[in-house]
Every structure is written in C-alpha cells, then in structure tokens.
C-alpha cells in the first residue's frame, strides 16, 4: 500500500461518516481529473463544471455503498462518465464548442509546455492549433467512443476497468477504442503530414 493510497483510504473512511473535510481532500485530489474528464466529454466548460460537481455530490452520497477494497478512482470515473453519457444522450443536438476548446488551450496550453525548448511564437501557435483540432476531433466522436478514448488515454484505465466502468463487454471496449483512434488519427493527419511537431 502506498502512502498515497493509505491517505486516500483514510479520507474515504472519514468521509463515509459524514466528514465533509475529509471529502474535501478527496475532491482536491480528483477535481482536476474529473473536471477535465467532463470537459473533454462535453466540450462546454459550464456544463463540465456542473456535471463534475454533480459527480462528486453523487459519489459522496454513494460512499456508504462503495467497497473500500476496490480502487476509488475508477469508481469515481464511472459516476462522472455515466453522468456525461446520460447528459449527452439527452442533448438534442451534439455540440462542439470550439470556443471552449480554444479558451482552454489559451489558458493552459502555453503554461503546460514547460519541457519544450522550441517555444517560439510560431511553434506555440501551431501546437495550440493541433490541440484545438484534437479537442474538436474528440468531441466529434460518438459519445461511446469518446468515453473509451477518455478513460484509456486520459485516465489510464485498463481495458477491463473500462469495461467495468461502462458496463460493456471487453470486445466492445476494443472496437470502440480502435475505431475512435483511427478516426482521430485521420482527423489530425494534416498536422502530421505538414511536419508540424506538436
């Protein structure tokens, strides 16, 4: 058991007794992952914030049913992902919020590229274009493929964990993941063929 895991289990135990302070510590640990998950799945920062908060709220209420011997993160991702998928199913029209994608990259993109020595303005611009295109492409995927891409590439879940989170067979995980990747690669081909190193 890592120290991090021990701390998390202590927070979970305390939060189950109604200790909101301990739950606040859990929120602090996972808020970035959950907010970014909902943001990438929904493409709208307001909706993402609302559903991410709702996910934590539901997790808090469901804590008494959480099996303490299981990892917490996939359980939390399941709540957030299913909230988003249900929400997307209710949305009448799929929306791809390019503005939201742009603003996110503007605020986070340049700061993130800390290890990049080639931070000339032109290179940064091209990289941001690539990030924006990638966000758009992810949002253009069917929600079920989008969710699998999210859980695999951004939350680092295994195939089996994704199957458990989404309640689908392993074969469906693979087909959605591979189709989604193929589509994304095609959507972004123009960036790579132009020798844009992003």
């Amino acid at each position: 058991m890592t120290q991090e895991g021990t701390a998390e289990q202590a927070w979970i135990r305390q939060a189950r007794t109604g200790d909101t302070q301990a739950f606040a510590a859990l929120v602090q640990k996972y808020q970035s992952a959950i907010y970014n998950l909902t943001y990438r799945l929904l493409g709208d920062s307001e909706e993402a914030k609302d559903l991410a908060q709702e996910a934590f709220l539901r997790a808090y209420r469901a804590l008494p049913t959480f099996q303490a011997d299981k990892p917490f993160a996939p359980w939390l991702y399941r709540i957030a992902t299913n909230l988003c998928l249900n929400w997307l199913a209710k949305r009448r029209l799929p929306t791809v919020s390019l503005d939201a994608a742009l603003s996110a990259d503007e605020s986070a993109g340049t700061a993130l590229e800390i290890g990049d020595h080639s931070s000339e303005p032109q290179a940064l611009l091209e990289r941001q274009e690539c990030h924006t295109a990638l966000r758009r492409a992810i949002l253009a995927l069917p929600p079920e493929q989008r969710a699998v891409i999210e859980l695999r590439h951004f939350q680092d879940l295994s195939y089996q964990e994704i199957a458990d989170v989404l309640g689908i067979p392993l074969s469906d995980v693979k087909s959605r993941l591979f189709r989604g990747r193929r589509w994304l690669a095609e959507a972004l081909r123009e960036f790579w063929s132009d020798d844009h190193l992003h």
Partner: protein
Amino acid sequence: MTTCTECEELYNLYLDGLLTIEEEARMQAHLAACPACRRALSDLPQLFAALDRLPEAPVPADFLAGVLGRLAVPPAAAGQRLPVPSPRRAPGTTVSARLGTLRQGLAGLGEWLGRSLLPRPVPRRLARVAVALAIVLALVLAGGGLSAAAAQSQPSDPLYGVKLALEQVQLAAALNDTARADTYFRLADTRLQETAQMAQAGRVDLVSGLVGEYERDLQNGLTLAQQAQAQGQDVSSLLARFQERLRRQQALLEATRERVPGPGQPDIERAVNAHQRGYAQVLTLAGEASPVSVAAPTPSATATAAPPTASPTALVAMPTAAPLPTATPVPPTPVPATAARPPLTPTPSPTPTAPPTATPTAVGPQPVQIAWSSPGVSAIVAPGASYVVNVSFSSVTPLRNVSLVVTSPLDRYATVSPASFASVAAGAANAVQVSIAVPAGTKPGLVTGMVLLQVEGQPVAPGLKVHLTVARPSGAAVVPPTPTEVEATPTATPSPTPGMTPTSAPSPSPSPGHNPGHAGRGR
C-alpha cells in the same frame, strides 16, 4: 495468415503494451508485407503522443467550494442510516424519519422544478427558491395561524412537520452564505433545545434523530462560514455569533447530560462531541479571520502541542480538542460518581470522547493547497539520453518538512532536486529540477508517474504528472517515428544516478522493423 483487420487490432494492442511475443511477431510479419497497413497505422503513435500532450484545462477556482455547497445532507454512516419511513407511521414517532423524508422530499421537489424549467442542471440556489415558493404557497393555503402555532411545536406534536417546513423557507430565503450559516446555527440551537425537552419528557426515542440534525446543522453552518471566508468575506461577526450560541449550547448540554435517562446518554455524548468539534472549528476559522472579537481561550496542552501543519489553513482544519471558551470561565461540572464521562470543558489531556474525525489519525485531511507551475511534464527521451526540466510549486500556506518523491515506476528514471525543503514560504515559487535519464537498452514505451509533494510525510494533491516516452532506438522503423516535442540530446550519456538501472533487457530482436511501443501501461 494475419488479415489487415487483425493487424490493426494487434497494432493497437501493441501500442497499449498488451501483445505477446508471438502476436508481435505476427504483426511485424504482416506490416513488413503490407504497405497499406503501414500507411494506415503510421499515424497512431503520433496520435498517442498528441493525446498525452493535450493540456489539462484549469479547474475553476470555485470548484471545491461549489461541491461543498452542494453537500446538503451527509451520507448516513453505517448504523446511522435514517430509517425508511413507513407511510402509515404515526406522527411524531420517529423524528429523524420525518426530518429525512421532508428534506428529501423538498430536495426532490426543488430538483424536479429546476430541471423541468431549465434545460440543464440548475444551481441548487434556484432549486431552493422554488422550494421556498412552494412551501409558502402551501402555508398560505393552509391558513395564517398555522405557522405561529407550528413554530412553538415540539417533535412529538402533529404540527412539527410544518415547523420544519418553515425552517426550510427560512433557509431558502437567506440571501447569502453568511445568512444561511446564521440560520443553520439558529436551527442547531432549536434542535438542541428540543433535544433537552424531549430528554426531560422521557422521549429518548426522539433524541437520536434530533442530535443527528443538530450535528448536521452545525456542520452546514460551519461549512458555509468556511466558504464565505474562502471567498474573502469578513466572517468575524458571524463567528462571534457562532461562539455566543455555542457557549449557550454548552450550558444546555451540561444540564441535559445530567438529566437524560441512561439509554439516551450515548446520543447526548454525540451531541457533546459535535459541539466540541464545532467549537474547535470556529476557533480555527476565527484564527484566520482578521482580528475578531473572539474571547481568546486559554491555550490547552493539546492545542499547543499540535504540529504546525495542523494549524488552520484555508479549508480544512480541525484541532483535536480546542478549549471551550466562556466569557466567564465555568469550572468543569462535577461528574457524578456513577458516570465516567469527562466534563464538557476539555481537560488538557485528550478526552476519550473525542470523535473519530477529530482524533489524530495516521492521515488526516490535508488542508494544504499547493499549485505547480505546470500540471504536467511530457518528455520523449531516447535510451542512453537524459533530460532535465525545471518546474516550481507554490503553497497557499507556509509549510515545513516538505519532501518530494517520484512514484513508481517513474522513479527508475526520474529524480528530483532538491528532494526536500525544510520550510516553504507562503506564495513563493519553489524551483524543482526533474532529471530524467533513460539507461541504454531500455525498451521503448510509455512510463507515467508523478512527482508528489509530501508534508510531514503526508502526500498532497495535486502531484506533477510526468509522461515519459522512451523513444525507439535509432534505426529504421516500419512505422514512422513519433515526432518528439521534447527530445533529449541523443549524445548525452546517462546520468550516473544511483539506482537507475535498465528496467529490461534489450529487446530480443531489435530488428530494423522494431517499433515505437507504449509498453509502459502494462495492463
């Protein structure tokens, strides 16, 4: 014979590090013979890298406060779950059931109203307003004298439900967090008075539910006060009012404790603990606020013995047993010989009735708030090369005994310098150098991990994410190489970092057809 469809699947699995040697050989053979697949799949490694490098969106500043604000009712702990009310239950038999039913019903109504009026999830505040309007309408229809009579009702009275509904109206009508916090504390007063009256009347069956509500109202009030303070509001007068109420509650608890029949005593002890916790939190908050008109309590041994990290910080801090302040110090109530319980006023030694959340467990909630200059670092380093990146972190509060650790398996490749800070000043940027060295012969793949800050040995979120892609060794590849955003100088020699040994033997067949794999996910 491997088909193109199978090859695509194999290649995906390969990038995820899930192929057996035999499967990899089949894939390689197909790729070598199929230019179409080589072309079709050539973009995937670049897609992986692009996904890895997609920046994280910053979390809205008020995110945590919003979550806490939406926590209306804590989850019932095992054994404390509210009983499910029966529709035929006689009125007044189970206060907790009635309270629970009413609040759930109101919350449901508000949610329903909100969601049916608006196309997206609505803020809880709107839902509360809808609830208030509904209740006011109901009360008007029921007649004006009702509310006055209800306000005087006791948990055993038929009108008690109306009293609770009126309280919800008051909560909903509160204009801001400070007003709502005040209301919650007033409700806590009311619940405690009812507790005392029910205990005196011998209705021990009602005491447990009332104490539960008392705990929740106290906690809700405190959470709102914390929120208001975190948002920069002046909460000093609010905290002074809290203290005054808590002081009066203390006297009531002392008296009730002496009168309650045996079966009700555990519930009263629970209330005493909640009261002590609440007082400790108020003191903590007051310690952060600008000079408050708070009667400075005499520091107790437990308070002064608390380590520096247990001192109040922005959101979560709960001293174990802060003294109960009284304007005029009240001596501990003499404890009857029959009772082994401690006096309400904490003694310098930790009281055995200290609640679980207040005991110094191995890992308490960390109130520490830190931020990294970047949420993550992404580097592509070839075997035999090294790479150095500079980042920094800052903390909202001053910290002591800070250490930095690299999580496994990244720790085989990355080290941080400095690895510890004796102290960290609030708000200052603390430079940290992350050095990555990939030994020659390391198999290509993805290694993810974190640089984690520990304060007094306890990890603090968020960590600095590190995505290290061990690049393919130089040589021809079947699949075009992944473009590198952060490419280490290939001429560099591996740093002679202790413990940095190759994680795997060189690939058994580093044929020209070898490929860029993301074997590091290892699932």
